[in-house]
């Protein structure tokens, strides 16, 4: 939760809600980009690498930094855990009450 995980913005989902789709190690995940958006149109974010904490893109990073961070997270077992949490969350949302 505290270490976050790098992802690349690949698509804008809702400009109004500041939501985009990020590719995190091959998993597509909706993320909020309010904290990194600035004043430019959201489309400009496509291709940007970012550090994602609990579904929120918190800072821009470069591709090399993203790769290095991913390597450390894999060593710590946190990358697998985060991606697993994303999958589990998807299932939890789909379960109807």
């Amino acid at each position, binding site marked *: 939760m*505290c270490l976050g995980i790098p992802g690349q913005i690949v698509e804008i989902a809702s400009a109004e809600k500041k*939501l985009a789709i990020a590719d995190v190690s091959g998993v597509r995940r909706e993320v909020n980009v*309010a*904290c990194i958006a600035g004043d430019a149109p959201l489309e400009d974010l496509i291709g940007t690498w970012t550090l994602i*904490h609990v579904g929120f893109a918190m800072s821009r990073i470069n591709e090399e930094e993203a790769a290095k961070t991913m390597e450390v997270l894999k*060593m710590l077992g946190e990358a697998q855990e985060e991606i697993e949490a994303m999958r589990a*969350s998807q299932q939890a949302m789909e379960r109807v009450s």
Partner: protein
Amino acid sequence: MKYADEFRDPAAARALLARIAKVTDEIGATKEKPVHIMEICGGHTHAIFRYGLDKLTPDGLEFIHGPGCPVCVLPMSRVDECVELAERPEVIFTTFGDAMRVPGTRKSLLQAKADGADVRMVYSPLDALELARRNPDREVVFFGLGFETTTPSTALSIQQAAAENLTNFSVFCNHITVPPPIKVLLDDPHMVLDGFVGPGHVSMVIGIEPYRFIARDYGKPIVVAGFEPIDLLQSVLMVLEQLRDGRAEVENQYSRVVPDSGNPVSIAACEDVYEPRPSFEWRGLGEIDSSGLRIRRKYAAYDAEEKFGVGYGQGAARFVPEPEGCACGDVMTGRLKPRQCPQFGTGCTPEMPLGALMVSSEGACAAYYQYGGLDLEPAE
């Protein structure tokens, strides 16, 4: 060697280790009279053990593991309140997975779920919001947990809920802040701390200014650090050099991610949504002034404490003592090493945690347990 070789750049790691050894010597620190550096963040604790940095660095340098794992410092009374909320029939209780196994007085959230409560592990508060949209006849409560790194995500989610007028979403807010417990540790006359490695991702949000008091009022160095082992070694070296030179400054080793002034959007969202609580309880450390955040009145409709009448200020104050034989408080303040706790590895394991430091991989005891048994060789 095994560990230095695992580094992306073993030569750089060796060079840094050599400089660390030299400066430790210059300070005159020895195994008997070591210099104590606290890494505040649980992520750093995990990385130090994973890469064996405590073994690679000289005997004259001792790491003290700080209170920076939000799951580990969550008081038992708050876990009890989570269970209470989760057991309400109308509630879908949403939480990060890390919090599921934290023991409460009666049960953990995991046990509550097994007993039939609708507890769902979510990756993000965004997913809790989505659950509220999809289940208009249920009450979705999100367990807001974490330091400054996750605090803005909960704030932005509350703002979003308000913008959509979602009436069945609320947050059980347990967000906490890093600087107040550091002040408590520094004020503790038994605490022997010479300097700090600061949490990088917290500073990514709040910047480095909030640590100024550590240098200015207490004369201790602090270096905000990244998470790669090289970052950590570099930061430790920067702390040691300050000590050798008699300086006490706030330095930023992780400037490629941490702007000195933090993230303005995050800061503004937090300012809008939260205010400090007069005090908040930390497991192992007790009540600490202004260390927790609560939701401001204007967002009371999204505050689970208001909505369901639980938590601080609701009914009698509840203090739940730590379980018998648990030494979490002493470990968290650096008085004991995890191994010195009588419960370590017997009454307390990651599968069956007694104390909170064993629950999360960022807790000092869990990190010791996971990596402590490895046969480590020192670097050359």
